């Protein structure tokens, strides 16, 4: 009974957050509109470009890319894998997914790598960024979708933004880690020879940490792919939408096919980016 006397006031954190989002929506509309236009254009143009060419040609191009990046075996795997995706009837969905992954990965890397560098260069910035990354990574992915559709255009743009937020942490973390792992005596050697800060970063720290950074890039791209599928909830399109429609119709066969297409895409992207990392190592 005593316990009832002590009442803990309820913190309306949810309300605060909503107000914050509404505030952004009201006062920074021009910014979000600009972002909308750029992302929409990018996603649609890549999509259009890939669909402009006959599917077989695009598949061949990807197979050659895989061959060049890694081995003829990966080239062969890419060729057969994409052919399977095509023959299951998921080609246009796969292309949409690919353009979403491409655009959101590029944005995530463009923001994430410099952020990782900053975090490595300054302990203070690093300690601010870390909890932020924890937040971005552990907040359930679906939750991003809600403010995303308020601030951005429903569909591809909101999906891309949610994907960027979800997929960015690995590349930030691994860029930070890679630079911090460069041995002290190598840094000291570079400094003792009279390097400027910029020369130290560009000629020593980044090249040496490249393999680790590539591992981060690979992770970010893989996370983009998985988030893009979830983003179909807000109409982002692509393979995710096929998975979702299979789910709503309880269509086992269609669901498996759509899922398989995601897996094939994931494996190809993973192996290609990984082999870039190995190239960097040599």
């Amino acid at each position, binding site marked *: 009974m005593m316990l009832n006397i002590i009442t803990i006031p309820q913190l309306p954190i949810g309300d605060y957050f909503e107000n914050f989002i509404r505030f952004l929506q009201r006062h920074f509309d021009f910014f979000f509109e600009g972002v909308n236009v750029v992302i929409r254009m990018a996603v649609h143009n890549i999509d259009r470009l890939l669909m402009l060419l006959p599917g077989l040609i695009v598949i061949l191009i990807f197979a050659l890319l895989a061959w060049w990046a890694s081995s003829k075996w990966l080239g062969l795997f890419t060729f057969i894998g994409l052919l399977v995706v095509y023959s299951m009837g998921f080609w246009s969905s796969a292309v949409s997914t690919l353009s979403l992954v491409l655009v959101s990965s590029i944005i995530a890397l463009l923001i994430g790598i410099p952020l990782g560098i900053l975090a490595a260069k300054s302990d203070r910035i690093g300690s601010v960024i870390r909890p932020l990354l924890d937040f971005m990574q552990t907040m359930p992915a679906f939750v991003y979708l809600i403010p995303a559709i308020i601030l951005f255009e429903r569909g591809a743009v909101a999906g891309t933004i949610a994907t960027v937020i979800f997929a960015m942490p690995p590349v930030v973390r691994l860029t930070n880690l890679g630079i911090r792992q460069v041995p002290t*005596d190598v840094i000291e*050697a570079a400094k003792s020879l*009279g390097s400027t800060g910029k020369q130290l970063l560009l*000629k020593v720290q980044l090249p040496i940490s490249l393999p680790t950074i590539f591992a981060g890039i690979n992770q970010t791209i893989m996370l983009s792919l998985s988030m893009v599928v979830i983003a179909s909830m807000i109409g982002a399109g692509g393979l995710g939408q096929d998975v979702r429609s299979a789910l709503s119709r309880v269509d086992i066969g269609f669901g498996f096919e759509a899922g398989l297409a995601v897996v094939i895409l994931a494996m190809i992207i993973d192996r290609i980016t990984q082999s870039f990392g190995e190239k960097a190592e040599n």
Partner: protein
Amino acid sequence: MTELEVKNLYKIFGSNPNEARKLAEEGVPKDKILKETGNTIGVNNVSFKVEKGETFVVMGLSGSGKSTLIRCLNRLQDPTFGEVHVNGRNIVTLNKQELRDLRRTKMSMVFQNFGLFPHRSVRRNVDYGLEIQGIGMEERKKRAYEALKLVGLEGYEEMKTTELSGGMQQRVGLARALVLDPDILLMDEAFSALDPLIKRNMQDELLELQEKVKKTIVFITHDLDEALKLGDRIAVMYEGSVVQIGTPEEILTEPANDYVRDFVENVDRTKVLTAESIMKKPLAVVDSREGPKAAIRRMEKEEISSIYVVDKSRILQGVVDIEDAKRLADKGVKSLKSILKSDYDTTALDTRIIDLLPLASRTNYPIAVIDDKQRLMGVIVRVSVISGISREGVDNDA
């Protein structure tokens, strides 16, 4: 000429260096200062001068502050108090640009774990320092090849550094420092990561190289043998302070305190002590203008059976036996010339005892120690070679 001078240098880690310095000046020990103020004394009021062309070794165990000290010299770490003068200019007050210029032209550093750039070839490691100065490809390549030749890495220029052995990697590190043609070379435990055999080779080669390039070298080591071998002078560090500065022989024969004495106790003295330190002043010599009678008198007085003969500028002429001298005196000959023998052994002042051992075992006469003008500076009898090896013998002679 003084190339490098360190004046009252302190490096104190922590937020209250002034207080820590005050305590240190009062002689409070390092760990007590840490407990009281939370500050760590890295380098405690160190001063020394290094002459141009000198190899100055800073020796101490790990934690003695020697690595911190050398990093204060090119400001990889900034001194908390004190001054570092390079050619009379205090470099502690230099701004970033001036400091970079100093590092690019005046002083280079060689690191314990080499600090090579794993993503660059041997040549590109060496030319890094030139590249960041904006020097063109052709000249860079030329100078890198020259530097690599100097350290004996001809033919390895285009290899990866990871394909090289430890000793070779450190040669790359050395070439990378030398390519900038600095006046001062800072070597931080440069050979400590190498196998003992390789290490000795590298030491020998550094000595040879130093003959050619004549740099001013500050060499950090925890290895006393290395310090004694390389150093013209040695500074012994303990808990951040320099406890003694002196030549290798001074450190060995006149340790400033118990710490240094403990340190030098187990040294192989034969490799360090030289002929000069165990020779006796040549009290018993005859002038070549004197006759056999004078020679006999002196030998009988000193109770010896042979005596060295020098001319008026003390240049060694030969040795005479007491029997020969007596025979000559009986015949009434005035000059020693006819009985002068030359089957004695000579040695230079800086010959190490270990190299005297073979001479000592075969010679019939005491070994004659001569300087570069053939003047007799001293003699070494067999027994003092033996006793020179053991510490007591040296102390008795000194």
